[in-house]
């Protein structure tokens, strides 16, 4: 053995050294390779943080005249469900994606929230600057969105719209935010984001949201011909600490529009809260009553279909028993995605702007007691509008006949 090592010791040592280099060096270089990925991630994170800080500083400059620095702050995200705008049963949870404290010198003066809401489509990302001193919004900025960005829709939310948020105090029970016709879902998405930001702000800081006690016991369509044209909805409400009751009328956008029974001593916050709660009731605003003439048994109704500038106007003449349609006529500006647009589908003698084939067919099916079908090419807007109108008509007939 000794002779063997004397003779071959050198090569064994050299070979062993090479094996050790291969093994341990291999592990070392593997570690280095793994670190490449780690550093790449770190670098990506650094870049992201730098971009994020640049964005926060830019927002600070536009929203906080006194601000001179921002720092990222951690928060406990809230989980609150809100109805997706335009849906009656689908919900989403807004998310505060990031939050930054704004400083003037060393003094924290406000906070910036980056919130993701849901407008017509998901991913409506907004920035809110909130002033600690007044608990009010200093500014709002849309960071990104997937809304339909045309002059007909999202672009309708112009500077005038956003200006209403500047100075909007959180210290009122109900946030009064005006929506914009034509961009209703986007407006609602921003409104939800604003309400949610206030919840988050109250959770993060020493701020309490003023409480307004309003409970809508029932909200329904107003079927009273004397008032239904001006007040499409009627609500039974209990409000205040003394649980007062009132029956009130609501406009088509659920705004409080008058008292039916009781005394109107509601505060503005309570009226806004009634509006907010009623808006979530699921009642359709696609159709409403126009007028009712008892002598001629003529009922005029309106529906909001594809063409937003004009309503579909339907005039029903009821039979003498007031339990069925004797005749009807439709005035429509609608335009469908199908061949039914062509003039050949118009009723003979019809001279209106559109071709109300779909409307007429659905009303005929209803009149004849058939199943009211969906019409291909008009299933998104016109069809649902007429279906809503017929449902409402049905309720009216029931009311005329003692609820039967």
């Amino acid at each position, binding site marked *: 053995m000794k002779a063997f090592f004397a003779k071959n010791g*050198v*090569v064994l040592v050299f070979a062993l050294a090479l094996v050790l280099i291969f093994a341990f060096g291999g592990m070392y*270089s593997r570690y280095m390779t793994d670190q*490449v*990925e780690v550093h790449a991630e770190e670098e990506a994170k650094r870049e992201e943080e730098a971009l994020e800080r640049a964005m926060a500083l830019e927002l600070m400059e536009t929203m906080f005249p006194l601000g001179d620095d921002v720092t990222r702050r951690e928060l406990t995200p809230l989980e609150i469900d809100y109805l997706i705008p335009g849906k009656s049963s689908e919900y989403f949870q807004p998310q505060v994606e990031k939050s930054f404290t704004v400083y003037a010198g060393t003094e924290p003066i406000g906070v910036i929230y980056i919130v993701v809401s849901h407008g017509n489509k998901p991913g409506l990302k907004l920035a809110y600057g909130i002033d600690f001193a007044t608990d009010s919004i200093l500014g709002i900025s849309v960071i990104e969105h997937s809304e339909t960005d045309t002059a007909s829709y999202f672009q309708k939310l112009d500077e005038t719209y956003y200006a209403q948020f500047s100075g909007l105090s959180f210290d009122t029970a109900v946030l009064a935010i005006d929506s914009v016709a034509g961009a209703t879902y986007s407006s609602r998405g921003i409104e939800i984001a604003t309400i949610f930001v206030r919840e988050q702000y109250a959770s993060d800081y020493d701020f309490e949201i003023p409480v307004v006690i309003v409970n809508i016991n029932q909200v329904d369509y107003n079927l009273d011909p004397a008032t239904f044209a001006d007040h499409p909805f009627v609500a039974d409400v209990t409000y205040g600490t003394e649980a007062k009751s009132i029956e009130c009328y609501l406009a088509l956008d659920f705004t409080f529009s008058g008292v039916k029974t009781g005394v109107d001593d509601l505060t503005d916050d309570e009226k806004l809260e009634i509006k907010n709660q009623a808006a979530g009731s699921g009642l359709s605003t696609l159709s409403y009553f126009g007028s009712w003439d008892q002598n001629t048994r003529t009922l005029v109704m309106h529906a909001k279909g594809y063409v937003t500038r004009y309503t579909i106007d339907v005039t029903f003449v009821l039979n003498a028993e007031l339990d069925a349609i004797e005749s009807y006529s439709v005035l429509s500006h609608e335009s469908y995605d199908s061949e039914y647009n062509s003039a050949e589908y118009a009723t003979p003698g019809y001279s209106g702007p559109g071709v109300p084939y779909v409307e007429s067919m659905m009303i005929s099916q209803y009149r004849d007691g058939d199943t009211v079908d969906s019409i291909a090419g008009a299933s998104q807007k016109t069809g649902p509008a007429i279906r809503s109108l017929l449902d409402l008509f049905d309720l009216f007939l029931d009311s005329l006949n003692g609820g039967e």
Partner: protein
Amino acid sequence: MARFAGGKAPYLRIADDPSKSTNALMRDFLIGMFPVILFAWYKNGIQVYLEGNIAFLEMLYPLFFILIGGLSSMLMEGIFFYITDKENRNVKGIMMKLKNSFALIPGIILALLLPLYTPIWVLLFGAFMATIVGKMLFGGFGHNIFNPALLGYLAVGFTLSGVIASAGGVFNQSEVLVDAYAGATPLGTLASSKQISYAALVAPYGSLWNFFLGTIPGALGETGSLAIIIGYLWLSIRKVIKWSTPLIYVGTVFILSWLIGAFAGDGGLWFPTYSILSGGLLFGAVFMATEPVTTPRNPLGKIIFALFLGALTVLFRFIGNFPEGVGTSLIVMNIFTMPIDSISAQIRAGGIRKQSLLKGIMIVLILVAIIVYSLIKSGTIYSLSALLGWFKLGVM
């Protein structure tokens, strides 16, 4: 009485003087490389660690990588000696041979040429190709035709570049994915953009001063121009290398680059300066173009060798697959070392005669052809006639 040495270089001028022995040459050569190794470690390890971007183990790795390159090269050579020389298998005999054969050098140079994130087994493969195939199979130190480290580098580059890339190493790119070193090398930028513009080639890396200091992306050993120059001065003073060879090589690249820049409409000195401070030019000029075994022996041969190296380097930078042209041009010129030696020896010994004159003219014509082709391929002129047009206008 004059004494002549025969056989292969290097020759020991005063064999009896221990300070001039092969062993001493190797020691001096290693000392000459020391600033480069130190800077490579500083730039890729210490500095980045001090900036808080990497861990302690990562900081040590560049030095480890270089030392492992040298050590593995030496171990392989030792094993080769053991296998091939059955009479001298004892420790003393093998260590003596290793001392006299520059055993560490190929591995160290190879490690300095490779990307930092090269897997160790790839480094070992490169060291094997350099030491065993490139050096020992040719007969060992003094008999190899190609620069061993370069052979290892090219073997790895051509066969395992994908492995290196998947491990995080990138040829001709930064080895450290943080801060100022991220991104393509200056030569990589030139290769991709083909634009001779200060804004594109120099400005992204700060200034030419950074090129001089070496704080630009590149392989471990190639960027530290200042460290390489310090090594050059040491090796020249110690007469380990012929001082003129690197100067002629770098000077040729400088002048040709200036011409290319001038044709492109920018006759400033920044482009030739950029050209000599980018890539592995200085490293190759000092540590590889001066290698005693694979380069010509006589002074005239060294000059011809360096001139061709310069012309080919510029050419390969514009026509090669890689942005760098130093390695390829060195390997090519290694092939012509013997003919150059032979022709230059004839001219030197016999003066300019008909036969040697013809050979000399032929060499000059080949050199001019390479230079002209380099200028054309640089994209700054598009045909020979355009070049001649400049002559007619009296510009040149």
